């Protein structure tokens, strides 16, 4: 049922609007009355069509490629492989694996364009080629990156099966000794000590600074944020040079694990501040406002609302910062010093860490030392990978998103709170009430 509210045919600029409006209002009222008094059995203005007995076909896939399109890819690929093999094997003067790939790729693009253009217009061809380019960029990138990691792990697997690689130091092992002697325990311990000191400084300082930026604010906070952003640009080698000149040369006069930890701190601090800042900014403002509206102080709002809400994100920020800090070689190169001996005292004597140990191993021309270098790099990669996976598991969720278990716990707790508040307060009120007959109380 559709009503069209026509204006008068000669409706011009001089039409009396008031008159028009009254007429429209009258029509509307009429419609309204009709709807109001409508017989309920009469079909309504909108009705759901009856699908009883109508055949429903299979759902059409909107993302699948047709056989034609699939053939285009396969055919172009086969043609390209054949052509480049032919060029490299028999006809052309071309050699080399990388050259073969380049030629095959170009031939594939050409054939594919040709095949697509048989059936489609130019726009379609452009779309297909762009998709191929995007996919190949992704394949090259992921291929290269995964290959880098797998290559290191594979070359490292030569040294990894030896248990002594993890339980001994290089103190008594020379460059010519086989892999069954010597290990990197001292580097593992060194890395743990250095990153531990760096974290002990970075976590409180970084998170408190991020809280300062977000919860206190003001002109100084903006200045702090600018400075922290600027320091993310500090090349790590310059951080190392600073610690070398300021701490080692002026104060301690020797390279030490502590100096290396300081260099890592200078490098990690801006990263952690920036990442935590982003996470804290994601905490919904209405949670804070609800907390303030209940009359809490700022400190309690931060401690009981903001930080718990952002906990997973903060943990992620710290872990990712740790992964960066563990892997950095250049600040450590200048500050920690190279040693083959276990040293657990960060304040005296050189203390090597994993990345520096890799660097030191592969400087040697001996194959066993290079194998040790790759083994150490594999340990380093596995460490970073583990940290990363842990970070993902903890911090895959945004601020305030709870897992099912946490949500159930929160619900249970609020029910308990409700009981406690209502029942206890009732009881207390009854025992404390000075007026046994509240109905008479005028208040």
């Amino acid at each position: 049922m559709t009503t069209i509210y026509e204006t008068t045919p000669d409706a011009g600029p001089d039409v009396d609007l008031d008159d028009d409006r009254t007429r429209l209002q009258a029509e509307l009222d009429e419609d309204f009355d009709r709807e109001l008094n409508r017989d309920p059995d009469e079909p309504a203005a909108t009705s759901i069509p009856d699908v009883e007995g109508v055949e429903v076909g299979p759902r059409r896939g909107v993302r699948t490629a047709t056989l034609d399109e699939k053939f285009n890819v396969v055919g172009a690929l086969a043609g390209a492989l054949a052509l480049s093999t032919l060029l490299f094997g028999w006809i052309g003067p071309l050699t080399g694996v990388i050259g073969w790939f380049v030629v095959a790729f170009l031939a594939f693009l050409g054939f594919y364009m040709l095949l697509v253009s048989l059936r489609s217009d130019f726009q379609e061809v452009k779309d297909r080629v762009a998709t191929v380019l995007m996919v190949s960029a992704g394949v090259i990138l992921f291929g290269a990156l995964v290959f880098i990691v797998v290559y290191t792990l594979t070359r490292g697997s030569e040294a990894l099966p030896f248990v002594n690689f993890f339980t001994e130091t290089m103190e008594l092992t020379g460059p010519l000794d086989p892999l069954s002697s010597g290990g990197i325990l001292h580097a593992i311990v060194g890395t743990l000590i250095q990153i531990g000191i760096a974290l002990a400084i970075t976590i409180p300082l970084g998170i408190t600074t991020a809280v300062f930026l977000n919860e206190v604010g003001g002109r100084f906070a903006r200045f702090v944020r600018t400075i922290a952003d600027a320091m993310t640009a500090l090349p790590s080698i310059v951080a190392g040079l600073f610690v070398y000149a300021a701490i080692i040369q002026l104060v301690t006069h020797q390279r030490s694990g502590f100096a290396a930890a300081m260099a890592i701190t200078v490098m990690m601090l801006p990263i952690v501040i920036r990442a935590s800042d982003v996470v804290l900014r994601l905490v919904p403002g209405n949670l804070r406002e609800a907390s303030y509206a209940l009359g809490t102080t700022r400190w309690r709002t931060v401690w009981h609302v903001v930080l718990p809400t952002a906990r997973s994100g903060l943990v992620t920020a710290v872990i990712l910062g740790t992964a960066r800090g563990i892997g950095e070689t250049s600040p450590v190169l200048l500050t920690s010093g190279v040693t083959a001996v276990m040293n657990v005292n960060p304040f005296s004597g050189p203390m090597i860490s994993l990345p520096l140990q890799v660097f030191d191993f592969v400087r040697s021309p001996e194959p066993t030392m290079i194998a040790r270098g790759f083994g150490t790099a594999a340990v380093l990669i596995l460490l970073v990978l583990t940290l990363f996976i842990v970070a993902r598991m903890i911090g895959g969720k945004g601020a305030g998103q709870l897992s099912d278990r946490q949500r159930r716990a929160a619900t249970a707790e609020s029910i308990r709170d409700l009981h406690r508040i209502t029942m206890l307060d009732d009881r207390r009120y009854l025992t404390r009430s000075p007026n046994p007959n509240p109905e008479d109380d005028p208040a």
Partner: protein
Amino acid sequence: MTDKDVFQTIDDVFLDDGFDRFERTEVIAGSGEENAGHEGDRAAGAGGAGGSGGGTDEGDGSGAPRPRSLASRRSTSDTVFQTVAFAAGATTVGIMLAVGLFLSIRAGSALSVAGIGFLFEQQWSPETQTFGIAAVLFGTVTIALIALCVGVPLALGTALLLSEVVRGKLRSFLVSLVDLMAAVPSIVFGLWGVFFLQAAIIPVAEWISRYLGWIPIFAVTGDDGAVLTEASAFTSSAFIAGIVVGLMVVPTQASVMREAFSQAPIGEREGAFALGATRWGMIRTVVLPFGRGGIIGGTMLGLGRALGETIAVYMIISPLFTINWQVLKTGTNSVSALIALRYGEASEFGLSALMAAGLVLFLITLVVNFTASSIVARSRSGAESL
């Protein structure tokens, strides 16, 4: 619990001990005609409530309430909290400024000796007072530019792939993979560059120099101008270092770009599709213009990392203290590799010269990073992506 009980409880709580701590809303008795205009102004200033209060209320003797002061007294815990937070911020700034100031001051003594020639001198021998960063800076920039040439197309393609083509679980897996790759230690890239890529890429470099050698930067010639063809002339070049650094910075670039692309408004995408655009047509007209800030910002962030990269470059290149235009030829240098190479044997003055080089590098990366973040923040894709 009846309503009355609740009110009673609230009264108990408030009248018990708590209420005295709060500043009460003060009610001023309207003091007749002479105050009426003043009162009205105040009330209007407080947000328009009772705007003409002074004029109408004089009959019952009570005027409009004076606006309540919004300033509250801080509790002790708040004072402590704010002081601690402020102290943390100040400490951070202190550390950062200490680094900057220390570098500047220590660099000053070398810079005052070298003067403006520091930027134009190629040799590096602080012992003889002839030192400058022309060669190392040139090497740094060439390596970073090659890295960008390798990285940006890959990053752009991957970012578009992740935001437009791939969906579902595969997308989230690949996005985490990109983030993971950003955390792979640079020494691993260096190892790969030295032990694998070097050997694999030399035929490509030879091919480029043979067929594109007429372009000056691709030529590889000896000191006498003769064309070099043996493989040893192609090792440890800026080209190889650039490729490795390029792969290192791609994850950073790709994640910034993807972030910008994925924020392209769905309405505009659908509008493009509704007008009959293909996917590439939609990307070209909606996603790329929208994400331009992200592309530029991501590229420059990658540039900043590429300029400061040390250990992978240091492992691959063979240091050279002259400007080498031939990027395929052995020998180049970079500021960070120079620092790693010379810090150990440096005298007090040599260290100061290294600090000056580090300071210049820092200033360059600083400018690059700030430009990047301001471009990203000003772009349509928004300030949130950084």
